[in-house]
């Protein structure tokens, strides 16, 4: 049949026609069986799509990752996420603009700065703890050099009379 509205049929099904176009398409449908059958088919498909969430097969994780990882010029790739079973949630695809193009390196730089800063803070903290009070000698054994035995040995090698005062001090010992 000539004069069929064509693409206006889908507009009629979607409710997107203005009043005049809708009246004209509906008048045509009264006399055109093929177009009436097509409109019925479109409506049935739309109804089916609206309720087909549970029936739609869930893509595998690998397929999802590949799809989300596709590089489309002008479209920012979406981070893969694990799809849960259930109704498919629409994925927002935002056209890449100027701000999105510059945000990527800025975010990386910020992340790098935060990582480096965290490592530096961790290193300083560890150094402060490990640097603790100065302890000379490490594993060396503390000794007491004030023992009076030194005086006796010194006397053994000298020709003078020693004062006993250092001996008295040596008996007191040293405090550590």
């Amino acid at each position: 049949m000539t004069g069929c509205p064509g693409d206006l049929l889908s507009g009629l099904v979607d409710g997107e026609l203005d009043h005049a176009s809708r009246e004209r398409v509906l008048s045509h449908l009264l006399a055109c069986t093929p177009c009436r059958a097509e409109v019925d088919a479109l409506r049935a498909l739309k109804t089916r799509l609206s309720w087909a969430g549970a029936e739609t097969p869930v893509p595998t994780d690998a397929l999802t990752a590949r799809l989300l990882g596709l590089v489309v010029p002008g479209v920012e790739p979406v981070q893969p996420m694990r799809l849960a079973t259930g109704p498919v949630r629409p994925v927002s695809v935002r056209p890449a603009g100027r701000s999105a193009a510059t945000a990527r390196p800025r975010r990386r730089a910020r992340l790098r700065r935060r990582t480096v800063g965290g490592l530096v803070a961790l290193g300083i903290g560890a150094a402060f703890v490990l640097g603790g009070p100065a302890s000379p000698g490490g594993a060396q054994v503390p000794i007491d050099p004030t023992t009076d035995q030194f005086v006796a040995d010194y006397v053994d090698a000298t020709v003078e009379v020693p004062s006993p005062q250092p001996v008295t001090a040596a008996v007191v010992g040293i405090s550590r």
Partner: protein
Amino acid sequence: MSRLRLLVLVAGAGTLLAGMQGGAAARTGTVPDPPASGIGETRALELLSVAAQAGRTRTYRGTQYVSTWRADTASSDVADIRHTPATGSVVQVRPTADRTEPADDAQSVTSATDLDVRLLQLLADHYQLQQAGNERCTGRTAHVVEALRPGVDGPAAVAGRFWVDAASGLVLRREVFDTGGRLVRSSAFTDLTIDPAPHAAGSASPAGASSPVALAAAPGALPTDALDALRRDGWQIPADLTGDLQLFDARVRSHDGRQVLHLSYSDGLSTLSLFAQRGRLGSGPMHGFAKQKVGSAGSAPVWVRTANPERVVWGGGGQVFTLLSDAPPESVRAAVTALPHDRAPRTGLLARLQRGLARLGSWLNPFG
């Protein structure tokens, strides 16, 4: 002619002189009066050689005082001494105003008047000796011997004086001066009783002066090869300290089960003992010692006790050094400076962070 060869000559001359002057002097141990032309270094060496032997042959007892002077302190002690050639000396220090309790135990020491033959050799090597006349000392006639610094004139030239008893050869009095001519140490008998008969084994005559030429190491002293082995093992054993104090005795002692290296230095007038131990010094203050800054900048302070003898304690190179000496302060300070010193531990946040980073680095270093 070297000093040692001169000493040998003097010893020989002493022997000859003793034989020429007859057996009377030899039997009594009396030091012969010097001939008019004998006043000089040869005569001085002979007198000191006799004095070096007197402690081995004479029995005596008496009271001796020892005084020392430092820049800010002076100390004096009085001790009773009993000496026999067989047993050595027993010294009992008397109570003083600042120490009311007498010493708990008398110490057996070498004679306070004995001139060690090794020290006599060092004295002849470092100083020019001369006899400076006769004086009365402790009620006895004494020959005065002076040790002069070579190349120095005036009052600062005298480094030491000895008063040698003309009858027995014992040293009655001794004085030591610093390079400025100031008296830093003096010791003398205030009273002295000497047995008239010398010890038979010593054949107490000036002929005994020949003994000083036998300069064998004292019993127990480490031989040269043992010292070299210790040096290779990391021990600090300088052959001399400040150029004047020379090593004349080294031995390994044991204190409380720990090995202690005892090094003795002298220039003939003063004696310095250096004790070295493996280990580290405690970080706390040492009772009776004062902290002083000695050595290069950045080195840890040393602990000093200015008494007789002066004592200095410090750590360096994985060892703890304890120095005891009756030498003038400038000599002690120079000796301490010449030995290793630990760096002073740095304090503050930056130093702490540096220590921590160094420790972290040592952990992360796979080759460390």
